[in-house]
């Protein structure tokens, strides 16, 4: 018999709050993180606003309790803060942590520091304090650093599948538990804004200088964001030993490839359909069992069309409530899957459906539209959370009330 997989804690930091409580409040008050950039040093501070966490690295270091140790990139700091909250929320002891795995996701790792000190680092004649960031530009570094900091020694892995990365990290954690390879894995992702990503997405001409409008007919692109979130996944066996009730069960997951184009999703939503369909079949559910979909909904022309078509194709006449929370946090790339998984946890715990902000005009190609106002007192049992990315990567997670 394979093990069931439960979520027993989580932690989060985004532009709408530096912990769970602040994020929850902002979501209910429709408070967004969108605005001019002031911490990231770029010429696009004013013309490409984004969802930035208004804390300098030094403030993040203090919040994470790092005094003198060097080499912590902003990505690692954000990740560490969210992870610390997740550990606390699940009530893990030091021994528990030692016996946990860590699967983290990022697309940029420490590129922010690398772009800042590029000329110094690559000139071997130069010496200085920048030296601490010599080898932090690779994506795996943040994961090992966080693991070392908190004392995780088992099962260390970093996933990078563009914007679906942390959904895949969570899925891998669930599969490890299911196959009885490990009893507890902390899964999620961390992503700091960088000039590299701001300019990269700008060169693709998919950044909207205005506040993004997912699933709206007038949508013009995404807003970038930064943040981190981690979920503590535990096996049924472990949960049975504890007295605490788990927060939710991870019942299903699906990972597929759209195989259409390196940077564009298929207009008919093949990958989206397959990922959601797989998640349902792993859970043994039919489409009618899904109460809410937290959509990927980046507000790019291409994603929302592809995802909308995929949803319509799978759910036909019975499309559940759906919304994208990207207007709140921006698109946090590799961290989006875990941040939105946390929003799904909150939705289940409080029986709330989060609104899709900035929607006003119906997309012409599809007949469905997202939830516009916060919905309370609905019955939420099963939620799908979608995360899609470049390279055709599409993933979907299915969370259920315990």
């Amino acid at each position, binding site marked *: 018999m394979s093990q069931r997989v439960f979520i027993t804690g989580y932690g989060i930091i985004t532009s709408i709050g530096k912990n769970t409580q602040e994020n929850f409040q902002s979501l209910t008050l429709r408070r967004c993180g969108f605005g001019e950039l002031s911490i990231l040093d770029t010429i696009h501070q004013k013309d490409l606003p984004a969802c930035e966490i208004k804390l300098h690295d030094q403030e993040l270091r203090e919040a994470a309790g790092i005094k003198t140790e060097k080499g912590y990139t902003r990505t690692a700091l954000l990740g560490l803060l969210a992870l610390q909250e997740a550990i606390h929320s699940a009530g893990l002891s030091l021994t528990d942590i030692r016996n946990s795995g860590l699967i983290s996701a990022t697309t940029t790792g420490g590129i922010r520091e690398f772009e800042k000190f590029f*000329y110094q680092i690559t000139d071997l004649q130069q010496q200085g304090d920048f030296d601490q960031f010599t080898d932090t530009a690779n994506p795996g570094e943040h994961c090992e650093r966080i693991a070392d900091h908190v004392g995780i020694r088992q099962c260390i892995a970093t996933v990078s599948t563009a914007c679906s990365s942390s959904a895949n990290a969570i899925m*891998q954690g669930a599969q490890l538990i299911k196959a009885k390879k490990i009893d507890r894995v902390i899964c999620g992702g961390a992503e700091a804004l960088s000039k590299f990503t701001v300019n990269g997405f700008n*060169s693709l001409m998919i950044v909207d200088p205005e506040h993004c409008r997912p699933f709206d007919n007038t949508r013009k692109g995404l807003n970038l964001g930064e943040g981190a979130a981690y979920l503590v996944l535990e096996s049924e066996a472990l949960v049975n030993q504890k007295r605490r009730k788990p927060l939710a069960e991870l019942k299903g997951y699906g*990972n597929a490839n759209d195989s259409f184009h390196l940077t564009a999703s298929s207009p008919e939503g093949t990958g989206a359909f397959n990922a959601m369909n797989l998640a349902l079949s792993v859970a043994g559910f039919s489409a009618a069992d899904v109460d809410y979909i937290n959509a990927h909904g980046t507000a790019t022309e291409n994603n929302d069309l592809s995802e909308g078509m995929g949803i319509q194709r799978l759910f036909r006449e019975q499309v559940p409530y759906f919304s994208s929370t990207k207007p709140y946090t921006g698109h946090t790339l590799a961290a989006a899957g875990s941040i939105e998984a946390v929003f799904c946890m909150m939705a289940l715990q409080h029986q709330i459906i989060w609104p899709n902000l900035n929607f006003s005009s119906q997309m012409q190609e599809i007949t469905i539209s997202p939830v516009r106002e916060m919905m309370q007192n609905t019955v939420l049992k099963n939620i799908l959370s979608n995360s899609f990315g470049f*390279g*055709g990567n599409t993933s979907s997670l299915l969370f259920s009330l315990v």
Partner: protein
Amino acid sequence: MDERQHYYINGIGIISPQKTFEHDQFLQEICAYESNVLTCIIPSFKTYISPGQLRRLSRMHRIGLTAATMCLRDANVQVPDGIITASGYGFLEETEKFLTEMLERNEKQLTPTYFIQGTYNALAGLIALSTKCLGYNNTYVSKGFAFENALHDVMLQLSENSTSNFLVGSSDEAAKVLYAIGMRAQYYKVENIPNLKLFDSQTTGTIQGEGSAFFMVSGAPSATTWCAIKDLQMVYTPQHEGEFNLALTSFLEVNKIKLSEIDVWVSGASGNIEHDHLLHHLEKTVLQQTPQIRFKHLCGEYCTAVSFGLWIGASILKKQSIPDILKVSTPEFSLEKIETVLIVNQYLNRNYSFVLLKK
């Protein structure tokens, strides 16, 4: 009943600093390098990739996609059921091109091609596109564990569906910018050393390598099977020799393998006297009686170099021979029948792994 599942390598494609892309050869010609950087010997890409696709691929994408295509052909599989890639640093040459262009042009007038090419999952996406594979797709970028994570993921996927064919592979490039990083971080040797003399060296640091190796792994053997993977384990930052030796003996115990059954062990020694110390300790203790081979003098060191080691192990089991260039003098090799191969790798003395292979 308690026989654990095996995973079969049913095809391989590998491009490396040696001439490894033709399977009828097994290290018969050896490429010697005078500098500390080893780069791939490449086949003609046009045999494997269409001109339309080629024009937008960087050198490393070409190498990776070609290795993957060779693997598919070797395994006689048209469309794999899933694709998992691994890389420590991704496509650093392209990342650097976008970054320097961004810095030099002060964030203005940038083209997206290098940005797209630098994405870590670009290779897995490209393979999915060229094989029209709609199945599972993942990319691990966990430094010295990236390939092991990918292989472990394949084993997980196959435990849910054992008849599937999963394409799993590595790619890491000897980027110039990585050489600068590595020199500053003291990963590479300061003095110049010919690669074939790597293990005579008594200094710290190693030599820079690169490569891409793809494996078709399935829960069932086929007519093209190379060998079986029995098990895999990672050990993160072992603190001392005792802990590491114990990890190995427990791994063998779980797999019911006696030390005497291991015909040869493949050491991932990198020629760095400090980083290799746990492996040196193994050869003097637990594996004292087991013949040893090494491979990083042929491919150089990189995050996913263990994939070159896996090709070595699989080739030894398939061809039942061990090229002299791999052998470490003692103890004697008896070449009657090779049935069990153990790979023990290390990266930066932080990421350790064991891979157990059977004929």
